[in-house]
């Protein structure tokens, strides 16, 4: 008997874990927050998108480098400036066996646009005027104006996860939301709020059966707890390892850390809309020169960051590699301030606390650096909801710390939101720059867009409407039992090629 088991175990090891055969094993993932609902259209946070990625599928996805890859779409054709035609994948089935067709795509998009759905990201798709079914596997979309980043919007938008129109129409919304089905690699099993989400492999997945039998996603808000679970094998993957704990986690047996530059950038708002010294370009440049980004990244972020010239990362279309970050030059900062004639400058500095990695600590350090070049700082820690309200209603006073994860991987998602006054988060506008941003937003010619973004980037750098800081680096703690897991800059995880040895 004993020998039999020995042989059995050896056989188990001989068969490579990434191979044909039924999915097996259980993968437990700890993330910081829980879902709020099971409805992709209403999702808002990364923790929710990861569920969308597992249970559903969408027209396009981004690969690790940020290129869009067709998923439920197979190809597209631009019919005219405002009409796009998509060919859809055949032979895809929902978890209940219903075939996926163009009707499901139409239903999903129209549901997002319906105000009753209260979809947080509806604004990103509002310009889709019509969705027309040509046949079961061909679909046309008509946009208000030409939209060069339509595909990227789908690739980035987990909220556009394709829903089963027939099932929802027959059974109703509520039963669907209690037990959702999609076309994704995993089927929904159970969700206990704030405790666990349980998924199971869908062997009929169109791209092949996933390797893991069961996936459990647990919300564990406290970093120390998440890491302790990883260390003792309670979870297999832990997100958001804080930079100062990376070495500790690396030293744990059976665990490795995957580090990846994030699509999220960190910078400071400067309110240039309200009259005051911040309307003076020299003051804004001075503040950029005053920040010792290198020390902040090395000492406070423990190396987990990359200095930025402006607020775009190399992931983004339109990124200009020729721009170099503002150097740390306090003397130049003082000189510029003196030239601008602001000797007794006093500014309010707002920061959230605990929203971004080391946010308050970095802010305190920067406030100290501003003081060193002679700018008096009135430091305010802000509760997130209170702070956001001020930001969106344009009531921010002077300076504010903020992070921005532009997961469209396109300069538009940053410039349009930050440098056009009407957008929720913008505190800057320049007529010439605005016209370029709008032009690029509606140009289907890639070369033209690229040139425009280079022009805009150079102007953004020169005008310094923000204090540019750094691009974050994310760390994921991954058990060595987990195979094929790849950390991504957009904080998403896709599990259908991931295996686990147990």
């Amino acid at each position, binding site marked *: 008997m004993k020998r039999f088991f020995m042989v059995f175990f050896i056989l188990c090891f001989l068969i490579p874990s990434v191979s044909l055969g039924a999915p097996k094993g259980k993968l437990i993932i700890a993330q910081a927050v829980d879902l*709020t*609902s099971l*409805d992709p259209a*209403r999702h*808002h946070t990364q923790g929710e998108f990861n569920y969308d990625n597992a249970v559903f599928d969408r027209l396009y996805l981004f690969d690790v480098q940020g290129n869009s890859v067709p998923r439920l779409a197979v190809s597209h054709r631009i019919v005219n400036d405002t009409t796009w035609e998509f060919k859809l994948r055949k032979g895809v089935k929902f978890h209940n066996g219903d075939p996926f067709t163009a009707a499901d795509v139409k239903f999903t998009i129209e549901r997002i646009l319906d*105000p*009753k759905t*209260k979809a*947080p*990201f*509806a*604004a*990103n798709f509002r310009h889709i005027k019509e969705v027309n079914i040509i046949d079961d596997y061909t679909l046309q979309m008509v946009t208000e104006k030409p939209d060069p980043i339509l595909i990227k919007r789908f690739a980035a938008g987990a909220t556009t996860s394709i829903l089963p129109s027939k099932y929802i129409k027959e059974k109703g919304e509520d039963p669907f*939301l209690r037990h959702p089905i999609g076309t994704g690699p995993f089927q929904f099993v159970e969700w*206990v*709020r*704030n*405790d*666990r989400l349980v998924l199971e492999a869908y062997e009929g997945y169109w791209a092949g059966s996933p390797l893991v039998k069961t996936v459990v996603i*647990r*919300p*564990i*808000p*406290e970093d*120390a*707890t998440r890491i*302790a*679970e990883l*260390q*003792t094998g*309670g979870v297999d993957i832990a997100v958001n390892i804080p930079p100062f704990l990376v070495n500790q986690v690396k030293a744990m047996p059976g665990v490795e850390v995957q580090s990846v530059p994030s699509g999220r950038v960190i910078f400071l708002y400067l309110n240039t809309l309200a009259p005051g010294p911040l309307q003076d370009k020299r003051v804004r440049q001075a503040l950029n020169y005053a920040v010792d980004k290198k020390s902040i990244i090395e000492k406070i972020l423990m190396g987990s960051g990359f200095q930025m010239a402006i607020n775009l990362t190399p992931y983004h279309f339109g990124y200009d590699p020729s721009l170099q970050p503002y150097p740390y030059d306090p003397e130049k900062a003082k000189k510029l301030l003196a030239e601008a004639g602001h000797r007794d400058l006093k500014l309010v500095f707002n920061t959230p606390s605990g929203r971004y990695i080391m946010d308050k600590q970095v802010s305190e350090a920067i406030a100290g650096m501003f003081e060193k070049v002679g700018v008096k700082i009135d430091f305010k820690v802000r*509760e*997130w*909801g*209170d702070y*956001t*309200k001020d*930001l*969106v*209603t344009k009531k921010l006073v002077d300076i504010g710390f903020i992070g921005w994860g532009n997961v469209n991987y396109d300069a538009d998602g940053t410039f*349009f*939101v930050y440098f056009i006054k*009407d*957008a*929720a*988060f913008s505190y800057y506008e320049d007529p010439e720059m605005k016209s370029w941003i709008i032009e690029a937003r509606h140009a289907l010619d890639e070369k033209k867009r690229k040139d425009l973004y280079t022009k805009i980037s150079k102007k953004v750098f020169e005008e310094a409407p923000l204090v540019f800081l750094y691009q974050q680096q994310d760390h994921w703690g991954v058990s060595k039992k987990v195979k094929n897991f790849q950390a991504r800059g957009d904080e998403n995880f896709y599990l259908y090629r991931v295996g686990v040895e147990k």
Partner: protein
Amino acid sequence: MGGYLLRRLYHSFIVILGITLIIFIITHMIGDPVVLLLSPEATQADRDELQRQLGLDRSLPLQYIVFIKDAVRGDFGVSFRHQRPALELVLQHLPATLELTLAAMVLSVLISLPLGILASMKPGSLLDRTGMTFALFGQSAPVFWIGIMFILLFGVKLRWFPISGRGGIENLVMPAMTLALFSTAAQTRLTRSSMLDVLDKDFIRTARSKGLHEFKVILKHAFKNALIPIITIVALQFGMMLSGAVITETIFAWPGVGRLAVNAIYNRDYPVIQAAVFVTSLFFIFINLLVDLIYTKIDPRITYR
């Protein structure tokens, strides 16, 4: 007695009405949920539309009337974030909270009462000093510090208990110990001081001089007379644990009402805040009524006019 209970019931009704009004005003004071619910590309028109959808464009008095009308039927509205009825959400999280709170309460009473009584019998003794040192620790150590230390010691090093989440009784041990620490300290100290008070009284000396066994003197005569403040603090802390276990729940990833309510506050999810406060207030009203009734059992001279 019947009349008294009836009056209390009537008062409770007024209290609940008062709470709903205050909580309604406060939730509307702390800011706008809409900005937290939309994508950055959303425009002012999008925000206005959502405001209308959520019924937040109506005048405050009108909103309150609608709120009360629905609340009477047990309907606190649908959570802005979770898209489920708010009361349902709170009730879903309630068992986990009750489990944790009861466990912590039992733990702290079982430790603190004997410890407090024994310490009061011999002030200055080794046991007294050990007990009071422990209490000192319990009353001044931050909860997060205790919780994480427990995790590192019992979870990571010794591997006695699972680190986080809800499950069997073994999952309950560390969070309950963490939550119980402060109340154990408080109850131990108060038990000791109340006992010391009573042990000085003449009737105890009389009882002793009658030659009664010391344990009988302590338990039957002294403890009973020291019980009123002890009962009060136990009840008070039970209530506070029910609503105030947020840090413990966060550290141990415990799916309780505390985390739900606090997240609702941060997200300005008015219906959930209102439902959570409503449910908590029912508990407080009930516990405090119970305490007042226990008073009359302990000390029959106590009457309520």
